[in-house]
């Protein structure tokens, strides 16, 4: 095999300019795919962290059975009671994979500074546990002022555009109004502890965060809408859902468990869009690689017709001729991919050194442009392009092998 490999390499080097163009086409295509994949990989990481930690969805959210369908119509019936909350948290936290389980409530209502009023959407969270969920995300989107504290139950966090609209900042007072679960209007004083950036233009003028106890008081209840579960790693999300669903059902708790990606509509839609763009770029590169290889190998077959005739006359079988040209195609794929790996590493290093930022549509602040270096993907991509080039070379290779020996020998 090595002797044919050697012959294939020398044949590639025979027409250096043409081979170089083909190798560059494959290399640039490779780098385009791998860099975009690296970017998308980071995007998915960012969106995942944003959903799990930024939005505070955790990895799993446990709802009472029927909440998602009818909970808004009859919330009291479909919320977890205090006893159920304690029982669920105890059962869930028995699992090694679980970091914490914490109750949450969502409230919608009106907030006012005494002069101006507007609507709000607030999450009621346990401050200490919410900090654990936020983790490093807190540093990414820091709060101006202070965060929620157990010892300051009336303290709230307010999204920056909402605070701007109401002319409120850390330390200022306001009033929130919302219907209790029994349908009566309730109003409570608040003090803005801190102002934060929700990360999205669409939510920055509506979002607030209350402590869980405050939210329960506003709704006049001791129940919780959901229990959010934070796991040690996102990869075990599905596995843990199955385990917890079984465990809670066995404990007599009728519930349904949603994963973070099911609840984060934004993640699903963005992922769908990027998957589509990735496939589009991949298809274009695929066409370029196939066309370049077919063209190069087709020219090689034409130029080396007489040589093919000679090899056949010397006894090389059709299969041998096919193999030789397919090998040349595969080697073009290999060398092109290696050029692509070098290009990828170079661009990746430049991006890391320059650290550029950009502001995506709908996002309130610039985000860093980061391309992840994913060695497994590079390896799979190398194999993919070798296979693709090899397959692309099969058409001209078969044409070469099928040539009539006499005609091939007479080719000028």
């Amino acid at each position, binding site marked *: 095999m090595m*002797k044919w490999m050697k*012959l294939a390499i*020398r*044949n590639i*080097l*025979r027409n250096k300019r043409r081979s170089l163009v083909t190798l560059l086409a494959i290399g640039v295509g490779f780098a385009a795919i791998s860099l975009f994949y690296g970017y998308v990989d980071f995007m998915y990481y960012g969106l995942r962290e944003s959903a799990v930690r930024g939005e505070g969805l955790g990895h799993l959210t446990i709802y009472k059975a029927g909440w998602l369908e009818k909970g808004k119509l009859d919330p009291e019936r479909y919320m977890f009671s205090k006893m159920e909350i304690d029982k669920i948290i105890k059962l869930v936290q028995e699992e090694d994979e679980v970091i914490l389980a914490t109750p949450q409530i969502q409230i919608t209502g009106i907030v006012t500074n005494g002069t101006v009023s507007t609507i709000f959407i607030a999450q009621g969270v346990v401050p200490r546990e919410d900090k654990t969920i936020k983790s490093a995300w807190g540093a990414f989107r820091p709060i101006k002022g202070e965060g929620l504290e157990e010892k300051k139950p009336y303290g709230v966090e307010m999204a920056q555009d909402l605070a701007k609209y109401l002319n409120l900042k850390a330390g200022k007072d306001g009033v929130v109004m919302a219907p209790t679960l029994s349908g009566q209007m309730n109003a409570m004083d608040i003090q803005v502890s801190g102002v934060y950036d929700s990360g999205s233009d669409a939510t920055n003028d509506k979002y607030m965060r209350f402590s869980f106890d405050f939210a329960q008081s506003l709704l006049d209840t001791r129940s919780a809408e959901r229990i959010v579960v934070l796991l040690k790693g996102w990869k075990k999300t599905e596995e843990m859902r199955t385990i917890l669903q079984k465990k809670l059902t066995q404990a007599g708790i009728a519930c349904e468990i949603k994963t973070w990606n099911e609840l984060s509509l934004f993640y699903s839609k963005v992922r769908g869009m990027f998957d589509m763009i990735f496939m589009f770029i991949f298809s274009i590169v695929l066409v370029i690689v196939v066309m370049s290889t077919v063209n190069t190998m087709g020219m090689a077959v034409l130029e080396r017709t*007489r*040589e093919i*005739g*000679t*090899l*056949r*006359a*010397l*006894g*090389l*079988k*059709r*299969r*041998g001729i096919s193999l030789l040209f397919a090998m040349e195609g595969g080697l073009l794929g290999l060398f092109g991919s290696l050029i692509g790996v070098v290009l990828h590493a170079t661009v990746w290093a430049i991006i890391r050194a320059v650290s550029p930022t950009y502001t995506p549509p709908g996002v309130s602040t610039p985000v860093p442009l980061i391309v992840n270096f994913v060695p497994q993907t590079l390896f799979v991509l190398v194999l993919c392009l070798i296979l693709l080039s090899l397959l692309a070379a099969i058409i001209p290779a078969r044409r070469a092998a099928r040539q009539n*020996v*006499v005609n091939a*020998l007479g080719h000028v």
Partner: protein
Amino acid sequence: MALIEMESIKKDYLLGETVVPALQGIDLQIDKGEFVAIWGPSGSGKTTLLNLIGAIDEPSEGSLSIAGREVRLLSDNRRSELRNETIGFIFQGFNLIPVLSALENVMLPLQIKGASSGESKTKALTRLEELGLSEFVHHRPFKMSGGQQQRVAIARALVTDPSLVIADEPTANLDSETARRIIALMRQLNEKERTTFIFSTHDQRLLDQVKRLVRLEDGRIVDGGGKQ
């Protein structure tokens, strides 16, 4: 048993819709160890006849057997094996692989056969040495003269120890002196190794040294077809 046996061989070519008869009923027997020249005017069918004997083409009609094997009954793979094991080719334009050195070119038929690299190298070096090319083993074809290239081609044709060597106009691209030396070399190999040589030529110098001449005219043997 004759090495080559041809009976009532016809070969037609299609030129558009016109059928052009290249060979019209050839009967020919060639034994092992013969040194045979096929000669005749241009278009008489010399190359077509050699192509058939070399098993790189098929007759339209008739029977052709090489070393006891009926060519028409062989699959393409079997024919490739027959060529590799039994037949050596020397082409008018040398047909060396330009990206390979003289040594690698000569090793090629053995490597196609599946011989090990070591064995191929030893045999190829021996043949190149016999043909006086020891100094040129690592030279690529474009760095060698026409005569040297043709000697490499002869070494390549002989490296598998074939029963038959087919040469199509082997001296056509060579100057007189080189042509004379190539002819002498072929003759010497024929006598020493009892390898059958069949070649086409116009070259009178070559014809003078041949025991058996087969003359073709208009696709028919007009002289030398019978067994010698």
